[in-house]
């Protein structure tokens, strides 16, 4: 039983999380106060979208540097449409999601058609999308956000549960269902594991690449919209610091950067770990600048651990294959 649990991606990080919460609560009983939990859940909900947006691209063995730029563009589009054109917020949200989808779709088409590495393509589109953001806003935030959006972005509907938890939970479940229960998800993981074999078994690799990038864009846009609610403004700098977090959470959750292997639950726990660390630094009034350092160390620790597990698994497979 324990053996099986240890082999999953999410069990180790979950133990770390629970132990961490226990230790912090001993030193600061306030840590699990309803208000603190609400703050934690708000951060986790929005950051989970960022992590999932990168995770789906890691699943196909690529990377998307433009996650933050797409999120930022969707965020200012959402806020701008409400302020400048007076579009009601649900419609503005749908249109902003559409922009994210389109931006991701463009990434996917460029990668699939040209065969140039996703790194270079998304570095170029990162700059293009961020430039559009700055060109539209001239680096000035949109402040006229409807009250309802501010409420949805910050308030709770039940105990310490904020409204933002609802879309986050929905996306988590849908993404898990997509990746591990639908043929499309299996195709995505197959392409990440071995594109050549996937192509031979009748999967259209370029179609899967486009779909994965479109989903990534959609999730990044959702993250951007959630940030507008949380910050109560359409700030052009939304998305600027997403890059490192977007990789940290999936790799903490056991994702292999070579593709084909990701964990939705693990990624979510990765987001929780990062949120707790940020919160702990605030609770103990430790320099917030250290978050950067800890994030970097976490990535190194996680990729090192994944690497060890990989080597271990290979050795076991080799031992099993050897005749007794």
């Amino acid at each position: 039983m324990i053996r099986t649990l240890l082999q999953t991606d999410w069990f180790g990080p979950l133990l770390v999380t629970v132990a961490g919460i226990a230790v912090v609560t001993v030193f600061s009983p306030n840590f699990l106060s309803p208000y603190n939990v609400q703050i934690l859940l708000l951060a986790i909900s929005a950051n989970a979208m960022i992590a999932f947006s990168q995770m789906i691209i890691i699943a196909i063995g690529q990377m998307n540097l433009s996650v933050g730029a797409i999120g930022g563009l969707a965020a200012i589009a959402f806020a701008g449409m409400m302020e400048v054109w007076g579009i009601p917020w649900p419609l503005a949200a749908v249109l902003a999601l559409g922009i994210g989808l389109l931006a991701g779709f463009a990434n996917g088409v460029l990668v699939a058609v040209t065969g140039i590495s996703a790194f270079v393509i998304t570095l170029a589109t990162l700059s293009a999308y961020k430039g559009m953001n700055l060109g539209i806003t001239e680096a000035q935030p949109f402040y006229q956000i409807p009250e309802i959006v501010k409420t949805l972005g910050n308030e709770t509907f039940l105990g310490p549960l904020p409204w933002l938890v609802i879309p986050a939970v929905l996306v988590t479940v849908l993404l898990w269902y997509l990746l591990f229960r639908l043929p499309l998800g299996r195709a995505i993981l197959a392409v990440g594991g071995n594109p050549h074999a996937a192509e031979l078994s009748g999967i259209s690799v370029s179609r899967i690449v486009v779909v994965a990038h479109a989903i990534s864009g959609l999730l990044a846009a959702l993250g951007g919209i959630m940030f507008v609610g949380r910050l109560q403004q359409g700030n052009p700098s939304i998305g600027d610091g997403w890059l490192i977090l977007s990789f940290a959470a999936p790799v903490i959750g056991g994702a292999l950067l070579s593709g084909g292997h990701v964990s939705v639950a693990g990624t979510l726990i990765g987001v929780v770990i990062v949120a707790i660390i940020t919160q702990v630094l605030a609770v103990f009034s430790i320099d917030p600048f250290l978050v950067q350092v800890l994030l970097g160390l976490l990535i190194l620790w996680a990729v090192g651990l994944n690497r060890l597990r990989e080597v271990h698994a290979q050795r076991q497979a080799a031992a099993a294959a050897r005749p007794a």
Partner: protein
Amino acid sequence: MADIDASAPAETGGGTGQLSPVARALLSNEFGLIVLVLVFAWIFTGISPAFMSKFSVYALGRTAAIDIMIGFSMMVVIITGGLNLSVGAIGVCAAMTAGWLMQAFGLPWIPAIFGGIAMGAALGAVNGLLIVRTGLHSFIITLATMSIFYGVMIFLTQAESFREIDAAFAGFGRLKLAEGYLSPLLVVSVVVAVLLVALFRFTALGREMLAAGANPRAAELSGIRVDRMIAYCHVLSGALAAVAGVMLVARNGAAIPSMAGDVGQNWLLPAFLGPVLGGTLLTGGRISVLGTLLGALLVTLLNSGLLLMQVGAFWIQTYLGLLLLAAVLMDMARRRYLARRKLV
């Protein structure tokens, strides 16, 4: 040709034999870049004669000098087929080290900048060792170290600038050569370019670095210590990023923690634009020093030309992104064309 290719000696007897050296030079990436630089300079001057004014040319050269150096710092790790996301973070760390040495210890500028460059090389060595020892891809390692380097630097400096820079150093940054047209920073970049060409063309070390990048297994079999070469490339990359950071201090007259953006990511685009435009292969083993220099020059030229045409400073980033896209697409088309005509 400034193309430096690990497999160059083997190639001369191949399909390219039918082409004269002149034709090969005309087909090269570098020639294409020179033409583009001249054409755009001519267009911009036609639109606004102020483009060729003394001040404009001087400012262009000064900006280009730093972008060229950033491009070199990425180029030397692309050799290994890897990349270095932490160039910006290293550059700022080195610049802050130099600034700190000058402000806190009153060190003269020459030892201070060597301190900064040593810091850059040391941080590059950290990258190199981590990559070689863990066997993990340089992308994820340098993603982590960019966060760590930048975080430690911000923590130590508390995001404060060092403004008490040696006056002689700030004076060097403002110096005007060649009747006011030429910035000494550009001279530094050109000198570094010549040194890099010398390293990769004429020294065993440079050739071994290229061979290790082109085909690690073959290099290993022929007795090259591939791991060591990869680590050296990262040390060199750190040192070059440090030079770029220190040049930025000379230009600004202060060492500012935010001068490369959050975690130094604003350097990423120029870092890749120069080498990619210049025809460096991202898979490693083939670089072009002259191409990287010309690529960075072209980007700076377009940048200031667009600003001159008042297309709106806020849109510049979009154009640069589209330029990188256009560059990689054109390079792909060029290679397909050459392959179809069996020219290479």
